[in-house]
């Protein structure tokens, strides 16, 4: 079973101070720490688990600036065999990303192509399912369980309200992977050092028929802080005072 996993390097914004660039088209990223998109991390782990069960190889690929190699190395350390690195400093358009990925993958033979459901940063959730259409393969989005039997996969898709559905797909297929599908495994420093000896192939954009300034279907006109609606009344003081106020509120509201 040969599996490709498409991954993305993204900035962590959860507990960071966010500033907007002067041109108003993105946030400032020089103060942020980057890492492997959480959804993609589950996808890589799932590919490695499937490889352990069914044999075969795991190839990871990503589009991004030079630093993207760091997340690809991490994927190799997680157990992937080979990495493809497509250098493109700025592409953000979901459709274009899917086209570049499709062009890179179309001549190779894979039984499964995995992506994360979405990226933590812009969260379009469109690359994996777009990719399936470009490659002419069936797909399932938001997958939280995969079972392979012969040339078929039975997968569970997560729906709203705690309900799931099971779907049967003919392989090869594209699956977008939901967080929680497996248990993440700790990646040791030794594994990362070892991963640096694994194969990392650079794929120049021109080689797959693209240039640096491809037309996009959408452009970011402006980013801005969400309008401040109702804001919480912040309880101020030292922890004792804050808890004192909190217990007063609780007494009142508990009824």
């Amino acid at each position, binding site marked *: 079973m040969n599996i490709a996993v498409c991954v993305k390097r993204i900035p962590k*914004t959860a507990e960071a101070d966010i500033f907007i660039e002067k041109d108003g088209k993105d946030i400032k990223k020089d103060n942020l720490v980057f890492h492997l998109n959480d959804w993609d991390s589950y996808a890589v782990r799932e590919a490695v688990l499937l490889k352990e069960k069914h044999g075969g190889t795991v190839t990871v690929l990503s589009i991004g600036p030079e630093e993207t190699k760091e997340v690809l190395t991490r994927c190799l350390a997680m157990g992937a065999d080979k990495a493809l690195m497509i250098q493109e400093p700025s592409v953000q358009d979901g459709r274009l990303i899917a086209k570049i990925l499709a062009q890179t993958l179309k001549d190779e033979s894979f039984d499964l192509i995995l992506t994360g459901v979405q990226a933590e940063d812009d969260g379009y959730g469109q690359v994996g399912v777009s990719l399936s259409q470009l490659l002419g393969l069936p797909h399932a989005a938001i997958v939280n369980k995969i079972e392979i039997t012969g040339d078929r996969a039975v997968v569970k898709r997560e729906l709203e309200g705690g309900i799931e559905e099971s*779907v049967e797909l003919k392989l090869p297929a594209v699956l977008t992977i939901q967080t929680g599908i497996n248990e993440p495994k700790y990646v040791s420093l030794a594994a990362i050092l070892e991963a640096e000896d694994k194969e990392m192939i650079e794929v120049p954009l021109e080689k797959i028929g693209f240039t640096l300034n491809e037309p996009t279907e959408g452009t970011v006109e402006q980013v801005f802080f969400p309008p401040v609606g109702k804001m919480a009344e912040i309880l101020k003081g030292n922890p004792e005072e804050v808890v004192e106020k909190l217990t007063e509120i609780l007494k009142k509201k508990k009824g």
Partner: protein
Amino acid sequence: MGDIFVLVEHRQGKIRDITYEMLGLGEKIFTQQGATLTALLLGKGVNSFAEDLATRAPKVLVIEDDQLENFNSLCYQRVLSSLISKYQPFLTLIGHTAFGMDLAPSLSVEMDLPMVTDCIGLSLEAKRLKGTRSIYGGKVNANISLKESKGYIATIRPGTFSPKIPGDKKGGIILEPSPLKEAVDAKKFLKYIEAPITGEDITQAEIIISVGQGIGGPEHIPMIEEVAKNLGGVVACSRPVVDRNWLPKERQVGISGKTVKPKVYIAVGISGAFQHVTAMQGSETIIAINKDPRAPIFGVADYGIVDDFQNVMPILKEKTKK
């Protein structure tokens, strides 16, 4: 301007709220510009749905087929691409849901229509569709302008727009032939799997302390359990806590978990992603404890404490001890 298609989402015999929300959005923004709101209803034995939708939309297109009984993106895509080719709608609205996320991207590629996903706002400016999206974990919004096109697809965030309520006028119901000729084999719907009912039912609790990834690790949960017990409440959590197996799935508050409306909801170390917020914002009183003052949860909460929970919860534990 021609039609605006709204794809009806239904599951297990019920039309889902996102459908009415998209009809509300379509009417509010586009009908004054001369568009006809058209509900697309795909299914099997869906007469009663069509009657309901006709009270909310001027036109309902119905496509009946055995293969449309349950959602299957491949079958849906075939029907939609044929309807879009026939009617050339200016815009097709699809829910940014488990159902829409499995369908809209491949449909947009097949029809070569520009698409913007997960919209919390939508407008038409100089003939281009513009979508507002919430990005970077809800910390920033972005306006995305799509290139000029004869048609667009947009997926809409659930719970964002006011639903269309039934009116007195009744729209026309038009039965369209199904374009599905042979059986679709590459993707098959098998069955629904309901969540098992076990353990604590958090939807019945009057007081909920909900923990997020921000608590750092499962070792802090017993302390939080104790506070919850002292207050007569239960512990729930956000999705990342379940993904990391710190708490079981049945404790999850969120779109893919449970929706709760307790008297008091205390969110501890929860940033406030919309998937979580949408399932707890009906709580009577919301209190958020988070060390990040910019966390979106403070925009939903009534009261906030900007501090590390470890500075606050142990004191609360002592204070609430009987």
